[in-house]
């Protein structure tokens, strides 16, 4: 059997192309967009998430500054 008549090549060439009905295709597209919009809305940060993220970023610095200021205050008390 030559390459031209190999069943696997025939399969690629001769198997009919299938597609969804155009009406159904548009419904599926619209549902995909709805799911995408919902996903984007879900991943958009609300004020609580924004606040939490901001706190996480400043937490270490704030606690460090508090510790340093307490240490300085203690030292001042001792030296007075």
């Amino acid at each position: 059997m030559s390459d031209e008549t190999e069943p696997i090549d025939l399969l690629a060439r001769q198997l009919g192309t299938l597609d969804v009905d155009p009406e159904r295709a548009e419904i599926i597209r619209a549902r995909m967009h709805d799911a995408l919009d919902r996903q984007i809305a879900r991943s958009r940060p609300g004020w609580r998430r924004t606040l939490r993220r901001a706190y996480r970023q400043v937490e270490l610095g704030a606690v460090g500054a508090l510790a340093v200021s307490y240490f300085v205050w203690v030292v001042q008390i001792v030296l007075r």
Partner: protein
Amino acid sequence: MARLRRGDATAFDVVYDRFRARLFGFLARLSGRREIAEDLLQETFMRLAVRAGDLSPDTRLAAWLFTVARNLHLSYRRSAILDAERLDQLALATPEAFAPSPFESTAASELGARLERAFAALGERDREVLLLVAVERLDHADAAAVLELSADALRQRLSRARARLEEALVLAERSPSADHRRRRS
């Protein structure tokens, strides 16, 4: 891929137009039923919409989509088998040897119709490997990833599927086509 990850709706439209028919053909020929293929196709694109943001920049989109579609089909098959009420229906939907393929009428020629019939008579494992490699032209690495096989296992499965397709074609040649049967009845 970057635009998909950002949630760019136009990029989703491009992917949808490029892969809709390919994925539908794959699912329809695996399940043997248009309405199931349509539902699974919809679920595949919904998954893309939900998970696109988590995909890595080097994701091979074709392989990813076919993997999702195949897994959805496997889940559907499992749930259908567990659903006792649908067992009879499932038996009807399972391709029997040389029963007319539901897609025979879409074939452009007698040879195409014979191929559809022979193809529908193959087992699911043979059909999926042939669809991915021969029809969808996925490279062997992608097809192996979709089917969760090693490269060697894929080659073996493909070779067996090819042999079975040859046998099925010979047998299909001897059985009359759906058109021929219709004309006779």
